[in-house]
């Protein structure tokens, strides 16, 4: 029982668990952090908040030994620490749940838990039975429902995230850092995580918690530090904050209405018609979406929203059923036809399905619209650049230049690039799957406004979401899914949270 036994043995130091002072970090063209201070107290949850690109992950990676700071000092338990590699950080008792899932997908869950230190017998052989038993015990203790013998690569993202969390808790720790650990979790799983966090703080462990979800912060945090543009803005006890003051600190202005509605009620013709669609996961799904409306799909994890999204744009094969876009059937069933007919998908999993991480912002944005910039078979780079620049400005994508590799952008900014990619194409229909995962409030409100504007301009927007406020705030009509079927369709006016949840459980 490494976690509880070992962590309990950590003596609770009198002073702060961690003191970072005057931290600075510069990347080519970006000042990611400038003179940032952060102090963690043992047994307390400290939330770190800020817009996309504010520097949260950078600060964490410095703490984790992934990046080297350019300026400042780090003290752990009062002693100055030099964190030159992830190994140093692990030795210092800092366990990090990274924003991007950091697991070996070919290994089992249990093996991933013990990646940092395999338990060995006297001869140095790995004790697989110990790994198996302790992993099972760990999940039982945390209350996480994950099969330790499963291969990580075959688990859904939410389970991978729980493995990631469990892994940070498997070994002795003084400081546990979580960078957006709940971005893929269901409300139940989040509740479990919070129980675990409280148990950790009960043992005197300091927790640093990064999230964009305000409700979570008010529920779990003792103190909040806000960063903006790489600078320290405020550190206050949570009691001194309201939602408004926190948002104000984060984005430096107020947001009056997260869900502005500028578009009228007018709706156009049916542009998407799906009849009797079945796949491995979906069963007999039929619906229509009209030009100028936002059709929201709600459902619990595993309800089949992502599968539906992928099927209707031609990405995943279908078994039976008909899909037509603007009156033309989606045949042959592939994304090439889909794009030609004017339907695009903003994927839920932007790392593996959306972005070309090594390529710059420019190519990532113009990918789907390249043919539009072609002249006699060659891409006119000047036109490509100016068109992309327009979108980058309009969406306020934070990047030092169009040549920056996309992997160096913060999560929210990556999402904006993907949205821009599809909108450059001049689509009829856009399917967005969890459009605001990992995105800060400021950017969220921009993306909501954008979706509103797009619908206003006559696009049909099909939005898959598990966020109730987003669903209710943005949709004209709401379809609820459960186990691969549509269980209810309602108008926004008639929809209540209760009715939606009931249909989702059905």
């Amino acid at each position, binding site marked *: 029982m490494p976690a509880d036994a070992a962590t309990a043995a950590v003596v609770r130091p009198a002073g702060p668990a961690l003191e970072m002072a005057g931290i600075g970090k510069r990347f080519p063209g970006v000042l990611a952090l400038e003179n940032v201070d952060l102090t963690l107290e043992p047994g307390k949850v400290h939330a770190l908040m800020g817009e996309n690109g504010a520097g949260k992950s950078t600060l964490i990676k410095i703490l*984790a030994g*992934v990046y080297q700071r350019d300026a400042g000092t780090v003290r752990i338990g009062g002693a100055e620490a030099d964190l030159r*590699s*992830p*190994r140093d950080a*692990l*030795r210092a008792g800092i366990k*990090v749940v*990274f924003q991007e899932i*950091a*697991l*070996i*997908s*070919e*290994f*089992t869950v*249990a*093996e991933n838990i013990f*990646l*940092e230190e*395999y338990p*060995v017998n006297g001869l*140095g*052989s*790995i004790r*697989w*039975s110990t*790994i*198996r038993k302790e992993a099972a015990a760990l999940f039982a203790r945390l209350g996480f429902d994950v*099969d*330790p*013998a499963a*291969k990580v690569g*075959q688990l859904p993202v939410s389970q991978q995230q729980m493995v990631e969390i469990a892994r940070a808790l498997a070994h002795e720790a003084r400081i546990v850092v979580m960078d957006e650990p709940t971005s893929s979790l269901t409300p139940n799983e989040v509740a479990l995580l919070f129980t675990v966090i409280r148990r950790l703080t009960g043992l005197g462990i300091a927790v640093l918690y990064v999230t964009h979800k305000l409700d979570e912060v008010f529920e779990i945090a003792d103190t909040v530090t806000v960063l903006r543009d790489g600078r320290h803005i405020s550190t206050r006890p949570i009691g001194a904050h309201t939602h408004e003051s926190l948002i104000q600190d984060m984005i430096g202005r107020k947001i009056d209405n997260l869900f502005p509605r500028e578009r009228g009620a007018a709706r156009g013709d049916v542009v998407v018609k799906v009849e009797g669609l079945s796949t491995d996961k979906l069963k007999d799904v039929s619906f229509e979406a009209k030009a100028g409306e936002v059709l929201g799909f709600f459902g619990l994890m595993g309800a089949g929203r992502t599968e539906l999204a992928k099927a209707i744009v031609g990405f995943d094969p279908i078994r039976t059923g008909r899909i037509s876009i603007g009156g033309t059937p989606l045949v042959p069933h592939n994304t090439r036809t889909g794009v030609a007919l004017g339907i695009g998908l903003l994927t839920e999993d932007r790392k593996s399905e959306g972005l070309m991480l090594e390529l710059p912002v420019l190519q990532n944005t113009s990918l789907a619209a390249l043919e539009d910039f072609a002249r006699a078979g060659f891409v006119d780079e000047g036109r490509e650049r100016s068109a992309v620049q327009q979108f980058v400005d309009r969406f306020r994508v934070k990047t030092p230049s169009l040549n920056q590799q996309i992997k160096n952008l913060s999560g929210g900014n990556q999402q904006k690039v993907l949205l821009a990619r599809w909108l450059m194409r001049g689509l009829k229909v856009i399917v967005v799957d969890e459009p605001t995962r990992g995105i800060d409030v400021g950017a969220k409100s921009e993306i909501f406004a954008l979706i509103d504007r797009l619908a206003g301009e006559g696009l049909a927007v099909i939005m898959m979401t598990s966020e109730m406020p987003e669903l209710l705030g943005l949709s004209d009509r709401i379809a609820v899914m459960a186990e691969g079927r549509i269980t209810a369709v309602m108008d926004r006016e008639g929809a209540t949270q209760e009715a939606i949840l009931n249909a989702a459980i059905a």
Partner: protein
Amino acid sequence: MPQSPSLSAAAGPKRPTELLRALFRRNETVLLVCLVALIVFFSFASGTFLTTRNITNVLGQASLAMIAGIGIGVVVLAGEIDVSIGSLVGAVGIPLVVVMNQTGSLELGMAAALLLALGVGVANGYLAAYLGINSLIVTLGTMFVIRGGIYLYTGQRAISDDLQLESFYQMGNGRLLGTVPYPALVALVLLVAFVYLMRHRPFGRQIYAVGGNPEVARLAGYNVKRLKFAAFVICSLLAGISGILLSSRLGSAVHVAGLGFEFQVVAAVVLGGVSLAGGVGSLLGVALGVLILAFLSNGLGMLNIATEWQLVITGLIIIAAVAFDELKRRRQ
């Protein structure tokens, strides 16, 4: 295929049909079935195939590729490649024979050979792992440099073994109890040792992790460069052993020894289900891949199929096998 055998075994299926299905999901089972089918086919097709003499001969020949294949397997699992082993296999014969001729000692000759292998491994590993130069390019370079060095030193002639030590001859050509060739025994011992290392020692699992996802491995506190470096050194040392056995079989240091050997071995490794992307596959698969190719070429030879056609058939089988593997993976 599951990377941690004991884990998947424990999560083991209960009913026999499930057991069978789980067994067949394993790449090694499929390879084993192919190997057995191959042997059965040739046994019927050719009267002289299924004789102790022939089978042990094939095992003896295959063991050189097997030993080198283990090394290539380790390097590829670590996410790198080494195509210099063919040249190295040829090169180690020189210090071996030269030192033996001068000192009269087989042991000193072998030590000199392994020292050369170690040097090549260190060079490859330093350039690829520490300087971060693409390993295909690095080892392509060392492949040419070593081969050129061999030609320069030997003047394109074989260096004969003046001593004619019985022990040197026995190493590559002798047989335990008159049946099992010694090289096959060496290969078996090394295979068992490395299968254990890769499955049951942290080092082996770390190699898998580094090949599977170097960034994650680094975050887990691994010294990625050192692990990759170690893989190159292991690979060269095993190629060195293979080269020592080869010169014993040839009875001299032959300047063209090992030409094209690297691709033969890489083919077997890939056939054995090791992904060139790194982190996926097993050494057992590698061993089966080596055996399949060895029995295939032997069997086709016995059927008097021209070597030209043997090459074509071997190539097609490799492509088919990898395609099959890929399709299976996609279905999962």
